[in-house]
């Protein structure tokens, strides 16, 4: 691709829009902006701009479009597939200063905000007002803009669905600088294609989100968690479809292995309530009354015990609940700290094949002689599988990682699964997308990309 190289006139333009304080070049750009949370790919942008308004974003996009300069939008950089890395250099738009709550509409139960607001700020803001924003991805310091761009899932997807289900409206800046409103506070809409849903999950390649209207729910008054030890992982996972079929709908169903728990204990320097069993299911139930929740979890506890669970630990105090979930939230960091380098696979398979797939990935450890750890959202079929480098030399590591991924992704495809459940394709998973969508499918994605971005200047080199 032939993009214009950034020259001093371009910097002058950016300074004329944002002032000198918010335009960074060369060594003034922190090294952090060259990669995201998983490493692997890295490239410095030529210039990084902290934008503060839709007008600034629009002016910069119009300029970039006219001058054929690539632009990469970025939130907190907590992504895992390199989607916010400026693979072609050019301008990086740092959205983090656009971090204001704009309106809480308690009659329509909506919250309008800017893309740079952090997930943890949203939950604090709404829960203080007895309201609830259900999506709950593990990384709480991510921005809402990033969450919308990856259609983040998280722990509560079993009951409440994913980010898309809570995005009512968006204000976006198109690659040519046009500002558009998509969706709104309406709860249903059959007036033209749902471009809003197209933008959700598009990984910053179709438009830049400058404002979002989120749907809220009343805050469930009570929450309890069950930690359920099993003698082995397969047994734990085979129980999940039985729970789903029982029609008690838990908020979350996570599975975890002993190795991962031990890693988390070491990383946090805190004990997990129990670490004596090989595998665990972690379930949460929420609702408005104690009776309602008790009824639901008693049924599920019996199902688990009948399926071979060793015990059922109920955590009904805020402290115990927090202890378990903070450990769960630290899994990724803990696994990362236990090795030199790692890469992850975020496949999603039909729920009934989760057990089979996890068993398959465990066998790969021996077959390829490499450490593989996994945890994930058993309730929605989305797994996070980590391949660990440990002491392998560079060449062996690259080769083994490639071989393991090939086998994993093609097995997922055979089971009716897909490459990514919630982390996206970005740069890192593109080769596997080609395998799963076929030539015509990829061409269709490219045609859509060009319909939005005819010059391919917005976050080029990602998704397709």
């Amino acid at each position, binding site marked *: 691709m032939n993009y214009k190289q950034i020259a001093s006139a371009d910097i002058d333009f950016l300074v004329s829009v944002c002032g000198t304080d918010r335009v960074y070049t060369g060594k003034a750009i922190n090294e952090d902006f060259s990669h995201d949370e998983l490493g692997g790919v890295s490239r410095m942008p030529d210039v990084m701009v902290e934008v503060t308004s839709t007008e600034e974003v629009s002016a910069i996009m119009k300029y970039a479009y006219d001058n054929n300069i690539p632009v990469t939008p970025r939130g907190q950089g907590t992504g895992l597939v390199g989607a916010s890395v400026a693979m072609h250099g050019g301008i990086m738009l740092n959205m983090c200063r656009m971090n204001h709550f704009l309106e809480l509409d308690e009659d329509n139960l909506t919250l309008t905000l800017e893309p740079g607001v952090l997930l943890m700020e949203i939950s604090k803001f709404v829960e203080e007002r007895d309201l609830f924003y259900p999506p709950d991805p593990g990384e709480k310091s991510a921005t809402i803009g990033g969450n919308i761009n990856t259609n983040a899932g998280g722990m509560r997807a079993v009951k409440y669905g994913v980010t*898309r289900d809570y995005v009512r409206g968006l204000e976006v800046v198109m690659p040519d600088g046009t500002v558009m409103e998509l969706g709104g506070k309406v709860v249903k809409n059959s007036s033209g294609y*749902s471009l809003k849903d197209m933008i959700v999950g598009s990984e910053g390649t179709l438009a830049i989100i400058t404002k979002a209207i989120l749907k809220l729910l009343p805050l469930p008054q009570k929450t309890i968690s069950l930690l359920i030890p099993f003698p082995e992982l397969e047994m734990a996972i085979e129980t999940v479809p039985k729970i789903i079929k029982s029609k008690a709908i838990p908020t979350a169903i996570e599975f975890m292995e002993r190795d991962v728990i031990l890693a988390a204990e070491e990383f946090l320097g805190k004990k997990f309530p129990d670490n004596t069993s090989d595998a665990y299911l972690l379930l949460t139930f929420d609702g408005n009354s104690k009776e309602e929740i008790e009824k639901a979890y008693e049924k599920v506890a019996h199902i688990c015990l009948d399926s071979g669970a060793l015990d059922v630990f109920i955590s009904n105090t805020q402290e115990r609940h927090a202890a378990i979930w903070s450990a769960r939230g630290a899994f990724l960091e803990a696994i990362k700290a236990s090795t030199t380098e790692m890469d992850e696979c975020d496949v999603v398979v039909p729920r009934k094949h989760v057990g089979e797939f996890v068993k398959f990935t465990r066998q790969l450890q021996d077959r390829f002689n490499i450490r593989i750890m996994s945890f994930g959202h058993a309730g929605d079929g989305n797994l996070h599988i980590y391949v660990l480098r440990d002491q392998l030399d560079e060449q062996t590591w690259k080769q083994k990682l490639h071989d393991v991924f090939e086998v994993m992704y093609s097995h997922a495809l055979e089971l009716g699964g897909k490459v990514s459940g919630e982390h996206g394709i970005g740069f890192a998973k593109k080769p596997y997308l080609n395998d799963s969508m076929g030539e015509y*499918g990829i061409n269709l994605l490219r045609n859509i990309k060009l319909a939005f971005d005819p010059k391919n200047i917005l976050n080029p080199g990602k998704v397709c």
Partner: protein
Amino acid sequence: MDKVKYRTLTPEIAAELKRIVGDAYVIYGDKERLEVFSHDEIPGTEYRGMPEAVVRPDSAAQISAIMKLANLEKIPVTPRGAGSGLSGGAVPVSGGIVLCLDRMNRILDIDVENMMVEVEPGVVTNEINEALRKHKLFYAGYPMSLETCFIGGNVAENAGGGKAVKYGVTSRYVLGLEVVTPTGEIVELGGKLVKDVTGYNMVQLMVGSEGTLGIFTRIVLKLIPLPEFQVDLLCMFRNTEEAVGAVPRLMTVSGIIPASIEYMNRIAVKGACEYLNESIPYEDCGAMLLVSLDGTDQERLADEYEAVGLLCREHGAYEVYVADNPSISERLWRIRRNIGEAFNVFSKRQSGEDMVVPPASLPAMVAGLERIAERYGISVPCFGHAGDGNVHARLVCPPEWSDDKWNSELPMILDECYRDVAALGGRISGEHGIGCKRKKYMDKVVSPEYISMLRAVKKAFDPNWIMNPGKIFDL
């Protein structure tokens, strides 16, 4: 804007179509039989178009062959389900082929473990739930024309229906689609996956695209546990302001989300009751709310309906009838479902509207509508999904008006209505779609840039502009 030149469907092409699907499944040259496929459920004759041929394929492979042929020959193709639409979406406005999906009516797989069902597009929506009942599972789409409409049409229009307040609209339940594209490729989008961020979300793009981007040949739907118990409350109010004003309060004050909150104004109730010979005492009633609560726990449901009934009374309901058995429930819902039909019988000169506003703005929208109706001297039965902010207003022509007067006044009336809707942050269609009927009004509520973007997306799928042309926007 220049028009696309389509070719005429020649006898040779008709013969080719017969070769693809079999002689018995092509209608060609028989005006009387073709006429059936020239319109949908919109009353009157304005939104009609004669097809040159009707083809009834039985598989994705046949549809692929038809699309390849049509794409090569530049012949427009209009997909059609049961023809129960209300926006002219299935009307072949540029002639060509109507591709009727009535033979693809199989329920392919009830997957209890994944809680999903896989169906062909020609399955009658209601039959899905009949097949699921013995598994105690439920597909939550509940369009009002449930006995006739096809699931394929529901997906194409992103149908809402009576239970969207609690369960959301069709798009929420569509997880996977097999689609034949305008160029005849067969693609699988999504799958039996409850979350999926692999590439752009084409499933949600397809849902609500009104048959302009591709033809669905297989649909994977998410299911929920069957709510086994239902209680309906018919709440009578003296006037519209009180009835509609109570709606946002019902949910925010009680924290209970009913499955349905349907609104009917006096004219609508009167029309339906006279049509059905229904004897409920509606004489003093200015407006009604029909509130449905459902669940799997009978005791909790009893608590909920008492709380909701009380709230309605506090907000001005002078009478609340409770229906806690299926036969009384059905009697109440029959009134609601037959309003449309009652006014179709009363007058063919009318415009069925589907405006949607943010739920809290519903009182303002209904008040505005009634003001406009009074000023122009027309009657406007209003009914619909109050909990979603989506109301079906029928703008009914007074019998004494000439056709000329109606035809010149209606655009002005609609103009004013849509301007109000836009000012409230609303849209001109909540669930029926734009089709050919509302196309000319799109620019009242959305920007020209948005419409250009729709056109660009369409082009990405349909380079020759043959797939259901003339709907939503013009080339």
